[in-house]
């Protein structure tokens, strides 16, 4: 690993100046960035530590409105929070499924949302599209863990579990651009490869995600489930987050987001159109689940993800 400077800005407004002519990167828990610099996927000159910036690590309930979670709050704190477990269950479920206990103790919410892809060609010595090369090695190569929808021209899946839950919960991100803060709904945050193949979200390198706001989920229940090869450490092969309102055993409204299938947490039009009015019995759920991923275009080795995602939808709806 090449050497770099480790910089600890004392305020948010100080952050941007380190991005003027140097090759810098924001550093939160480091569990993702460190892997990338060690492999020399990127050789940054400056690591800009966000922990020295005050007030980014608070969880705050805003009465009657919702919950504000600082970007530097650790995943383990989210996983253990009673408020989040009771009111924003999908996020609690997702946080508990991230990586391992040790990693959850270092990893932050902001870092989890902004982490880079796990495509093995990208993490290894391949000059692929995302690294300014002219070829996607996964498209015809080892693509078992890649995207089945929304992929082309790069077939990464978004690696974050918490992002899938936050999308179902309609989170809003607060972003500081060096001068001022703005709000961006999560549905406008992630970027598909056909729009920009180098970035996974709208942030400029110097822009800081400061906090995540989740609106109050009155009368709604939410859950997240994930399937991975090992229970610990592994990223989702597919995951599902749901948020619904119910009247008896009928769903009156809600949202379903799929993880592990696309370069961004995936909003499938057909299932989301069909969710309202769904009766929660085995036959209806079974029929309903088949609406998911009908437009998918799997690669040679990842077709299993369609069945897997549909089965996860069935599981989560029969438990909700």
């Amino acid at each position, binding site marked *: 690993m090449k050497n770099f400077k*480790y910089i600890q800005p004392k305020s948010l407004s100080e952050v941007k100046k380190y991005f003027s002519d140097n090759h810098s990167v924001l550093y939160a828990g480091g569990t993702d960035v460190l*892997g990338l610099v060690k492999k020399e996927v990127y050789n940054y000159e400056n*690591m800009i530590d966000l922990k020295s910036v005050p007030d980014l690590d608070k969880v705050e309930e805003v009465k009657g409105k919702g919950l504000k979670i600082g970007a530097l709050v650790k995943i383990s704190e989210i996983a253990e929070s009673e408020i989040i477990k009771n009111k924003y269950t999908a996020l609690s479920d997702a946080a508990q499924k991230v990586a391992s206990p*040790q*990693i959850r103790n*270092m990893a932050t919410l902001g870092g989890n949302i902004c982490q880079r892809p796990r495509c093995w060609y990208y993490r290894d010595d391949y000059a692929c599209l995302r690294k300014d090369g002219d070829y996607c090695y996964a498209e015809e190569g080892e693509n078992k863990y890649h995207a089945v929808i929304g992929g082309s021209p790069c077939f990464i899946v978004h690696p974050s579990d918490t992002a899938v839950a936050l999308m179902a919960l309609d989170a809003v991100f607060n972003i500081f651009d060096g001068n001022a803060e703005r709000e961006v709904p999560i549905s406008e945050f992630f970027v598909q490869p056909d729009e920009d193949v180098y970035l996974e979200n709208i942030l400029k390198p110097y822009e800081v995600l400061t906090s995540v706001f989740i609106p109050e989920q009155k009368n709604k229940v939410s859950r997240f489930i994930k399937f991975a090869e090992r229970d610990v450490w592994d990223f989702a092969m597919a995951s599902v987050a749901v948020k619904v309102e119910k009247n008896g055993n009928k769903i009156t409204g809600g949202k379903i987001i799929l993880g592990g299938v696309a370069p961004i947490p995936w909003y499938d039009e057909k299932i989301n159109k069909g969710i309202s009015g769904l009766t929660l019995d085995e036959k209806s759920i079974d029929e309903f689940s088949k609406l998911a991923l009908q437009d998918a275009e799997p690669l040679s080795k990842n077709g299993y993800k369609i069945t897997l995602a549909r089965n996860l939808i069935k599981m989560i709806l029969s438990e909700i």
Partner: protein
Amino acid sequence: MIQISFILNGKKVKLETDENRRLIDILREDFSLTGTKEGCSIGECGACTIIMNKLAVNSCLVLAGQLIDSEILTIEGVSENGKLNVLQENFLKYGAVQCGYCTPGMIMSIYALLLKNNNPADEEIKEAIAGNLCRCTGYKQIIDAARATADTDMITDLSQ
């Protein structure tokens, strides 16, 4: 180079080092604390587990700069004056050690659990070591050793 000071096994330490060195390198090379082992180097085995600010973390994923003003406890810091603590004794008693490579990390993960919860359920013990791989013992003996230690209620917070 970066100047850092932090608390290591109860003592304040200072050093100047390259920014790109990891906590595991600093422990093993600069402080000769070789009890902490390196396995995978990527956060997937738990052999390098230490306690940072009372939480179990992978020392292979912590950079020098992140140590500033932190409190670090390693396997060397859990025994006092060369005498094994109850948890270590129980690892021996319950046959929870074979090759021993995973042992320091396992002990630190369980120790971190006991620091915040001296009466954990079996499920909580399993969860605490979910990020630690053992290739030889099998996890039952390790869980038994943790169980017995929790039941004796004798772990004290040495990092204070």
